Structures are given as structure tokens and as C-alpha cells.
């Protein structure tokens, strides 16, 4: 690292089209936790027809409504999807939620329409399911217990050898069948957890920030720790809420 303050570049994919369920809280969490450590953060909102900034360290891609998802899927085909894939292959981090997760996979198969192609970064296939999974969700993972709120009817199945983000403790997860939630390829993550996810799961936020810094600077010292009393209090309330309802 140079003597000037380190910097971090976040690309927020389709911020206006894919922005339901408070997923922007994830971008707020990444930007604030980096800023609190003296890192210069830039957030690029990248919409339809706009190129991916070349220096992106962390991608964020949230959930959207059906029609938005069709437009976005089309826009991602070709150079844009390839740019994201090569950035992730070079170590960039990514967090994708719900619709964003599905479009980072191979494809999404709706009930009554043509399959939507994804960018194939995750070897997963998603399809419309018969019921909607709605509720608080707790997942055991390498970042400890993660807590979020799921609200999806899409079922996602992982290809052989692809790691999930974790095992479902409370809730339904990827598909309600195999006990997995999310997918992980290199430093890219996908899952169904809204909440927003990162503000209540600070360890996961910091892991993404560290991966982003490593992508930019190579080996970096560990992040200094922050006072996470409020975050952990919210985490504890949410996991308690999830467990009591079951």
C-alpha cells in the first residue's frame, strides 16, 4: 500500500432497477465500514447500457421485480457479463442477492416464459418453484452464523463441486430441499438473504472489504476491528426472532 489513504471501488449493478427489499443496505454497510477505517470508497451505480468500471474491487447486485430482471438479463449478456467474470477470476469480490444471484448463475427458468440466461459465474440453475419461502433465515457459515430474511419462490440448485455459503439452520435456503444456502465461487457470493444482509453480519462485510483490498493491493494487513456492539445486538435479536418463530 502507498502512504496515501487506500481506496476501494464498488460497482453497484442496476441500482435503480434491482433495488427491492432494502438491499442497498449492503452497499451502505460496505461503504461505511471501509470509510470508518480511512479507506476512500467510490460507489459506481452501473445501469443498463453502462460499462463496468475497470477498477472494480467489489460488485453488488440486488433483487428486482420480474420485468426488471428480463431487461437486466439481456444487458448482462456479452461483454458486460464477461467483464464481471474476468474481474472475479482476477480476485474481485462480489455479493449478489436473490435476482442478482440467479442472474450470476447459468439460467433462471420462469413458470410461463422463456428461460433467462445468466452470466454463468456460479454453476447454479434456478427455476420458479410452487411456493414462496418467506421468513427469517439463519445460516451456519465460515463467517459464523448469518441472519437474513428470505422472500423467494425461485429454487436454486448448485452444480457439483460448487460450495454453498453455508447450511440452513432456520428457514428454507437455496431450494428447501438440500439444506444449503447461497453459493461461493472465489470471492463472489450469492444468496437469498435480504435484511439487509451485511449491516447485521459485520464479519461478512469485512471479509468482502478485505477481499476487495486484496484485489487492489495484493497482500494487505488485516483490517482493524470496529466497535460492533450495535450490529451484534441487531444480529442477536434477528436470530432470536428466527428461532422463536419455528
Amino acid at each position: 500500500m502507498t502512504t496515501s489513504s487506500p481506496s476501494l471501488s464498488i460497482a453497484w449493478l442496476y441500482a435503480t432497477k434491482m433495488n427491492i427489499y432494502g438491499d442497498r443496505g449492503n452497499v451502505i454497510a460496505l461503504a461505511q465500514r471501509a470509510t470508518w477505517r480511512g479507506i476512500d470508497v467510490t460507489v459506481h451505480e452501473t445501469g443498463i447500457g453502462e460499462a463496468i468500471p475497470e477498477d472494480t474491487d467489489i460488485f453488488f447486485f440486488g433483487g428486482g421485480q420480474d420485468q426488471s430482471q428480463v431487461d437486466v438479463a439481456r444487458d448482462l449478456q456479452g461483454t458486460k457479463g464477461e467483464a464481471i467474470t474476468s474481474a472475479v477470476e482476477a480476485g474481485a469480490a462480489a455479493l449478489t442477492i436473490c435476482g442478482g444471484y440467479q442472474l450470476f448463475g447459468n439460467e433462471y427458468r420462469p413458470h410461463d416464459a422463456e428461460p433467462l440466461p445468466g452470466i454463468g459465474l456460479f454453476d447454479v440453475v434456478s427455476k420458479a418453484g410452487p411456493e414462496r419461502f418467506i421468513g427469517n433465515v439463519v445460516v451456519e457459515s465460515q463467517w459464523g452464523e448469518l441472519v437474513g430474511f428470505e422472500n423467494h419462490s425461485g429454487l436454486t440448485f448448485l452444480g457439483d463441486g460448487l460450495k454453498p455459503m453455508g447450511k440452513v439452520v432456520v428457514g428454507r435456503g437455496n431450494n428447501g430441499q438440500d439444506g444449503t444456502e447461497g453459493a461461493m465461487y472465489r470471492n463472489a457470493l450469492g444468496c437469498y438473504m435480504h435484511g439487509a444482509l451485511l449491516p447485521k453480519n459485520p464479519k461478512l462485510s469485512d471479509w468482502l472489504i478485505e477481499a476487495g483490498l486484496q484485489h487492489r493491493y495484493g497482500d494487505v494487513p488485516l483490517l482493524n476491528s470496529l466497535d460492533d456492539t450495535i450490529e451484534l445486538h441487531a444480529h442477536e435479536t434477528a436470530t432470536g426472532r428466527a428461532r422463536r418463530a419455528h
Partner: protein
Amino acid sequence: MPIPSSRFDPRLASAVAASRLSRQVIQRLGRGGGTSAPGVIAQRLDPGILRKLSARMANGTIVVAGTNGKTTTSRMIANILESDNQTVIHNRSGSNLVRGAISALADHSTWAGQPRGQIAVIETDEAALPDVVRDTQPRMILLNNLFRDQLDRYGELDTVARKWRGALELLDERTTLIVNADDPSLMSITDNLRVHRVTFGLHGQDHHLAALPHAADSSTCRSCGAELGYHALYVSHLGDWYCNGCGRRRPDLDATGTDIVLHGMDSLAMTVHRIDEALKIDLGVPGLYNAYNALAAVAACRELDVSASVVAESLAEFRAAFGRLERVEYKGRLLTLILVKNPVGFNEVLRMLTAETGSLVAPTLIAINDLDADGRDVSWLWDVDFELLAEGSAAISTTGIRGTDMANRLKYAGVPGARLESLPSEMNRALDTWIDSIPVGEKAIILPTYTAMLDVRRLLTDTGATDAFWKQ
């Protein structure tokens, strides 16, 4: 127009009786207002009860829907119609599912099922609108706006929009549709229908927003998918919109609100222009969102031929509904309670609270619950622009089942730790601790979600505080 009929219908009579009796029993047991369970029972006895009772309304039925403001707007309309000497049946208690409508009508009917009212004002929630419209065959429908609200309950906005459109397509020119033309989603839902459409909206460059807030839902054209632009943006995605792609734009307005003057948290004034009149309105409730509600009520009631002077006089007397904006004195402190239930509504409340100085001026308690009526998913807190509260010196406290989520949201909005207090989740403990931190005689604000509001109100009522409304 439905034809009143008084032919005796034994099945209807038994359903009406069951609804009324069960309501009385519930109230006697002290289990709340008893506003929805009786409707469920009545519907089971006579599935046609809502259709039959509304067909017997001499002056027909008015259905009011929209994510925000439907309770306020329907109360304004009911009050105006009462001032016009019409007898009104209105599901006032905010129980706005099908069963709430049934219960309200049954409660105001004779045992034989003859409504004791000339006109019904039925407030309905987003999910129930298609059923309520089908059953009541309304003479008038008022659509205020369509925002994201409780996605866990209603599903995505696109789904709601499709269902509304489906219900409206079955109606003809005998139904008048009063619709907010500033909402591009509502315009595409109501384009090319057979109903008589009357549009309303705001005009002018005062009070516009600099940019589309994050909570806004429809920034794209429903016809062609291109980004929408705005000559002026007033609340969330409501404004004088146009499409950059296909050229669709806000249509000409039948009723236009102009010259809006907002008096902080107290009141507002506005002029409503229609074809050949300009009606000056003074309203006893504050906030730009209430300008929309009043404009909708004026458009509806003038269309119903209520005189302009009756409309203006009734609105001047208007006060806010249960918990939506109430002022109460409690242990010597002057409290203002404002219901918050979704990102758009919360943003407008924050805008009102910070309008005069750019920051919060009074200590504020935010109470967030996650029960069914609040929405079980608290993700929506991240769509509210709490960043508005980062500056200033007023303390912000949090409570409720998910008060810790709220505290966390405020931390990430940049509210310094010294101004932030995470109180116990139990309302009774939190309220007293919070009150003790406020000097006697000072003003303070409580922003609760729906069930948190019920908790706060119950605590205040237990001490007799809610009878003591304080004057400005």
C-alpha cells in the same frame, strides 16, 4: 348505480346478525375494537353479503385504495359527505380487508340487512381491492398511489398492478375513477379503460425533490421500459413525469393542486383548480402527502356534486386519524405520535420533521415491530433515507421488537453514537426511560409502526393521557 332493494333475504339477515352479535361479544370481552372477525363469520354464513349490502346503498359505494393515505383520504371524503347531510357508512377503524368492509356495512344495517346509510366509503388495502370492487360494483373508485409496501404480504408491485388492472377492466362508464396522474404506474394501470377517469395531480416548482429517492419504485416506463424524467418530482415517484423513450407523459389534469404552503407539523394550505373554479383549501393536517390526500378528496367530492363551500369547510375542520398524527400530553411532555409503515411514508414524515431547520428539532423515539400487521421483514428500513437525520443534536432512541435493527440503521446513516440510544424492546420499559430523559414541558416525537403504535396508545390510554390532547 346499484338499485336499492329491501326484499327480505334470510341468509343475509342471519349473516348480518352474526356479524353484529360477534362484534358486540368481542367488544364486551375487551378484545380490541372487533372490526374484522365478525366479517369473517358473516362471510361464511352468506358469501354474497358484501355484494348484497352494497347493492342496497341508495347513493352507492365509494372505494378508496392506495398504499399511503387511504385512511386519511377516505376519512376526508366521509366527513365531507356527512357535512353534505348524507348518511355515510365507513370502515373507519382502518380494518381494510374484505372482512373489515363487511363488518362495517353489517354493523350499520338493520337486522333484516337494510343499510342505515345512503352512501358507503370503503377503504381497502392493495390485496383486497379486486374482491371489494367485484362485490361492491362501486360508483366511484379513488386510487391514491401505489408504492412498495410489505412485499411479504402483497407480493411484488407488478403483481398488484396486474390484479388491479384486471379488476378495473370489468367496469364500465357508470364507475368514476379518481386517479392520481402524478403516479406513472397508476396511469398505465388505468389507461384505456371504459370507466369515467378523472385525474388529479400537483403543479408548481415549490416543494419538489432534487432526485428520485431510493425508495421510489417505478423509475421506468411501464410501456417501453425507458427511464422516466420529471419536470417536477413531489413525493417518491409522484410528479409531473414524462417518458424519454415512447413520449408518454402525465396527462392533462382534471383537478390540479397549486400554491401549496406547508406550515411545519401543523397545517397546510392549497388551491385546487378544476375546469372553471379555483378552490382555496386550508387543512388542519401537515405534510405534502396530505396535500395529495386533500386534493384527491376534493376531486372525488366535487365529482359527487358536493358544493365547493361544504368541501372547503369540512376540510378546514379535518383532524388526523387514529395514531396517524396525534398530539398527546404525557407526564407533562408534549408528544406527537406519527405512524410509520413503509419507506415512502417514513421518508415523508422525516421530510416534514426536518423541513424547517434541516435536522430533527425534538427528541424522537422510533418503535419498530415486525408482527404481521407491520410486515415481518424489516429490510424496508434500509430504503428509508435516515441519512437526513445525521446532522443536528436531537437524541434518537429506538425500541420495539426490532428496535435493534433500527438503531443499527441509524448508526449506518451516520447518526453519532452520542445521539443514539437503543432502549429495551419492551414498550412499557422503553417509554418510561425515554420520557424521563425529556424535560417536563418539552416536545418530543414518537414514530411507531402499526402494532407498536397500538402498544404506545394502550400505555398512554392506561394513564389517561390520550384524552388530554394539547393545543398548539
